[in-house]
């Protein structure tokens, strides 16, 4: 049985990575969105803010979710809370 301290640490690390990723999500969505008019320089033909809205942010969302799943699945094993084989 993992100690309570270990479990708390797991949860704290989960909160930290969740917070960081949500921060990136917020910047990509709302900060870039807020400055969309200022960020309209040409980016391979697209205005940059248009590109971000149509593709860039989507790619980043996908990466955020992929990274989180990988990070957490590794952390489960590190802290011994991964699901057993019976699952």
């Amino acid at each position, binding site marked *: *049985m*993992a100690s309570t301290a270990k*479990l708390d640490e*797991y*949860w704290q690390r*989960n*909160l930290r990575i*969740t917070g960081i*990723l*949500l921060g990136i*999500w917020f910047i990509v*969505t*709302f900060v870039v*969105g*807020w400055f*969309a*008019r200022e960020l*309209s320089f*040409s*980016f*391979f*033909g*697209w*205005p940059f*803010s*248009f*590109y971000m*809205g*149509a*593709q860039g*942010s*989507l*790619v980043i*969302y*996908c990466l*955020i*979710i*992929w990274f*989180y*799943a990988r990070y*957490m*699945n590794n952390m*489960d094993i590190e*802290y*011994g*809370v*991964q*699901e*057993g*084989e*019976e*699952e």
Partner: protein
Amino acid sequence: MSAAMQSQKAFKAQLTKVYAFYTGGFFLFVAALAILEQMGMARQTMGYVFLVATILLYAGIGVMSRTNDASEYYVAGRRVPAMFNGMATGADWMSAASFIGMAGTLYLSGYNGLAFIMGWTGGYVLVALLLAPYLRKFGQFTIPDFLGARYGGHIPRFIGILIAILVSFTYVVAQIYGVGLITTRLTGVDFQVGVFLGLAGILVCSFLGGMKAVTWTQVAQYIILIIAYMIPVVWLSVKQTGIPVPQAVYGNQLEKVTALEQKLIDDPKEKEVRQIFRDRAAAATEALKDPAKAYTDGKARLEKDLADLKAANEDAGKVKAAEDALGRWPKDQAAATAQWTRDRAAAGRANPPARHGEAFAGKDEKARDIARRNFLALVFCLMVGTAALPHILMRYYTTPSVKEARSSVTWSLFFIFLLYFTAPALAVLVKFVMYNDVVGTAFTSLPAWAQAWAKVDPSLLSITDVNRDGIVQLAEIVIGGDIVVLATPEIAGLPYVVSGLVAAGGLAAALSTADGLLLTIANALSHDLYYKMIDPNAPTSRRVLLSKILLLVVAALAAYVASLKIADILFLVSAAFSLAAAGFFPALVLGVFWKRTTGIAASLGMLAGVGVTFWYMISTHPWLREVFFGTARSVAPDLWWDILPISAGVFGVPLGFLVIILVSLVTPAPSKETQDMVQNVRYPNLKAA
């Protein structure tokens, strides 16, 4: 490796094989139809073949997956591998609005339409980080289940049931409406008949096999819809740019469109047409101040003109023109008023074309600021709403483990992403065709597809020679958004079989979403209301049976509402997101992340969130305001910070959080049991640790 894991692995391999064969078979089916088309098969027949074949296919999967087992019926036995759950979620998620409407919205509103693209994908970040893994660990059947277990007692569960039904029902009505439209387009049957045909397809599947059948059909539907969406876009891209990856190259096309826009804004002929609309609108506004007088005066003036010409013995041509003008004058005052109202409403056509790539266009700094505020508010509501729609969250109960639930969200977003990052490309490609190939041609040499569509459905495309110069000006074209997706195959010069394929794809999108939603409603009633609240001793078989009966009742009710053809149906869909966001999101997230959250607080928070959102909508949306308060539509609504009613959730979500936090702090902490349950949900496997 345990036996269970081995069987799960074999199951996955088996699934992959089945769906690979299925995809191949589908391609063969389309190819066969293409050959038959060359041999002279009628379009109507082809429409029927597509409709009947796909619905039989979905029904067949339903029959093969029939079940009466509760776990299979409610959560597909919890053995859906991450990737397949991702595909099913994609189909569940992408409705008729995404498939047909999205590219059209982007065509019509340019950058501002991207709110839907970002909102409906970014929400999955919230699902992945804040909800999916915890709900999976909790491992029950529905969202009200979680509320009931976490917050104790029947009240939170009951509020959850109400919100789930409110949200899902508005949404399912829109889907069934979409089914009716597509079926009509595909086969030419009546709208009502179309609705019930589509409904039959939905029901056979979810009725027999519940979540299990719905999951496997949704995977099949995803495959059809993504193929149907991609083929015409890729082909159009090859035609325009020579490169089959539209998503990578449409930046260049956007540059060309931007150059064409500038040309159209400055073009004198365009200005002339816009001026005509401006004058008409001004005259109509003037006439509508006193329609009775304007009608008789106008008629008298025309009659006098005619009489004067005749008296002066003018040549026949002039007399004929005056006679025609009198003949065009509305036959009575009611017709005249209707005409003037239309003219006044068409004032927008006097505006120069909006620039596609420009963010928050507006005439001054203030208008631009309001546009920006509403854009971000809408993105916020759609994202948070995504993370609170019960039929989507429910899908993450069906994976075999927390680990799979996490990667399943990745797969979901990936499969949704494929369509969503194509839609903006399609909008730009079609806009280029419109600006480059249609505008500036003579009316006599319009492209065949434009002629055909203008004839079939004037609400989708209508071109009138307003300034009578025989040349098409952009300002003379009225376009309905849906045409962008529906007409792409013809614009790209593909055979009719691809048009049928696109319609079948739209049908798949609408059916799959309707399936998921109907199941959510039926489960909320049978599982949460009946089993958990009314008769906890009910045997499984009775629960499943009840769920099936309710499914029929709800479906019939939804079809009935859809057949009324309620206006503003798109608004209702978006409203569902705001309501879900304000109702569920705060209570679900705080339930996992803050052990101190109490049951009373959650109940009050859900009610406050939904309450304020609903109230803001009915007091500011012109149509709803008329329905609820009888206020005339012309009265300007009293908006808060200029936020439009569609984004009402932007007030409801923070209020929900605030109420839950404040009330929790003044009510006694939840029991040890509840806190242990939260602790348990936070770790994939606490016991083995």
